[in-house]
Structures are given as C-alpha cells and as structure tokens.
C-alpha cells in the first residue's frame, strides 16, 4: 500500500502572506505620502527635489514593486474565479504580468532618469 501524504504546493499560503505584507508596505507609504506630498506639490522645484532624494526613490520603487506583487495575487484570484475558459484566462494572466512588469519598469524609468 502506498502511503501518500497530501500536501499542497503551498503557494496559496505564500501568496496570501505576500499580499498582506505588500499591503502593509503600501499602507505605510500612502500615509507617508499623505504627510509629505501636499506641501511639496505646490511648485515644480519642490516636487522635483522631493523625488531627487535617494530614500524617496527607494520608497517609491518599493511601493510600486509591492503594488505589482499585490495586484498579481489579486488579479489572478479574480481571473481564477470568473474566467472559466482556460485559454482566455491564461491570456489575461499573461497580459496582467506584462502590465505589472511594465508598471515597475516605468517607475524605474521615471525615478532614475
């Protein structure tokens, strides 16, 4: 008799955790942005100076990288629930990955120009 222990791939737990950690990172950045951005948005010089600082660039990139990971888990869940056609779902998932990878690349391009 073959004894089989049924275990999952555990990517569900990993994604669940990742979605929550990335959410926390984005929440902290959002509160930070709400605190410092309004006063810096009054002039181009102040706005530019804010995003010229190293920590702001890193924090902003961290935000968008978190967003991409968070959104990937979320969009994948939505697609798995509502799109029943395998080919269409795969196509939409590929599009999502491209879109999110594009967002992160665009962020890097904006911040380190």
């Amino acid at each position: 008799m073959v004894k089989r222990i049924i275990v999952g791939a555990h990517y569900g737990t990993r994604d669940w955790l990742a979605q929550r950690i990335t959410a926390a990172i984005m929440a902290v950045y959002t509160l930070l942005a709400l605190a410092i951005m309004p006063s810096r948005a009054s002039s181009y010089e102040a706005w530019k100076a804010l995003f010229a600082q190293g920590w702001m660039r890193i924090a902003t990139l961290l935000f968008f990288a978190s967003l991409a990971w968070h959104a990937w888990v979320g969009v994948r869940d939505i697609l798995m629930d509502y799109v029943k056609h395998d080919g269409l779902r795969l196509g939409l998932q590929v599009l999502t990955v491209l879109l999110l990878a594009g967002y992160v690349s665009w962020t890097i391009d904006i911040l380190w120009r």
Partner: protein
Amino acid sequence: MSSAAAKKQRPKYLSLPAILFQIRLPLPGWVSILHRISGALLVFPFVAWGLYLLDLSLRSEQGFSHVREYLAMPVAKLGLLLCLWAACHHFCAGIRYLFLDLNKGIELRPARISAGLVIVLGLVLTAFFAAKLW
C-alpha cells in the same frame, strides 16, 4: 450511479451576473465585491494614469503645470473622484481583512457593523480628499 442529489441543479461558482442580480448580498459580501472592483480599477486604469501623471509632472516645468491644468478639467476631476473612491474603499476594506485574518470581528454582528463602517468610511474619505483637492 446518478442519485437524485447529484442531479440537483446547483450553482458551480458565483458568476458576476449571479452576484449582481440573483443573490441578495449581505453587507460583508458587498464590501468583498467592491474590494475586488476597486482593486481591479486601481490596477487598470488608475495606476497607469497615476504613473503617466507622475512621469509628466517630473519631466519638466511645463509638464508639471500641464498636469495641474489637466487635473482641473471636469472630466479629469470625475476620473479622479472615482480613483479616490477606489483607493479609499480598497484601503479601508483591506484593513478590515487584516483584522479578520487575526480572527478579530469575525462574529456575525461585528462583521456586519465593520462592513457597513468600511463602506461609509470609504465614501467619507473620498468626500474629504475631494473637498481638499477642490
């Protein structure tokens, strides 16, 4: 082989039309579906829109003032309002889910109350930020 129970018609999954028109959702259900809708809206188009505006605003002095003029347009303001709501609702509902994950507020009554609170708070915050921007 096929018993009566197996033949019984039952929904295999909750389709979007079923959620919208056939099932009367309880309040936490509304928070859940609005969390998905707002999340999807943020992924596209609002993050793309935000990055476009950030790009333009940091590109040059002209770009910066262009963004200000652009966001003053009524159509852009309408879009911004929807974007604000999506962000505020998604934020509040997300915080609620973090508490639910910690088994806080999972009984029926607290869950209903917090769900109602999330929907109201999402709208109140939207109104607050909209008022600040105008």
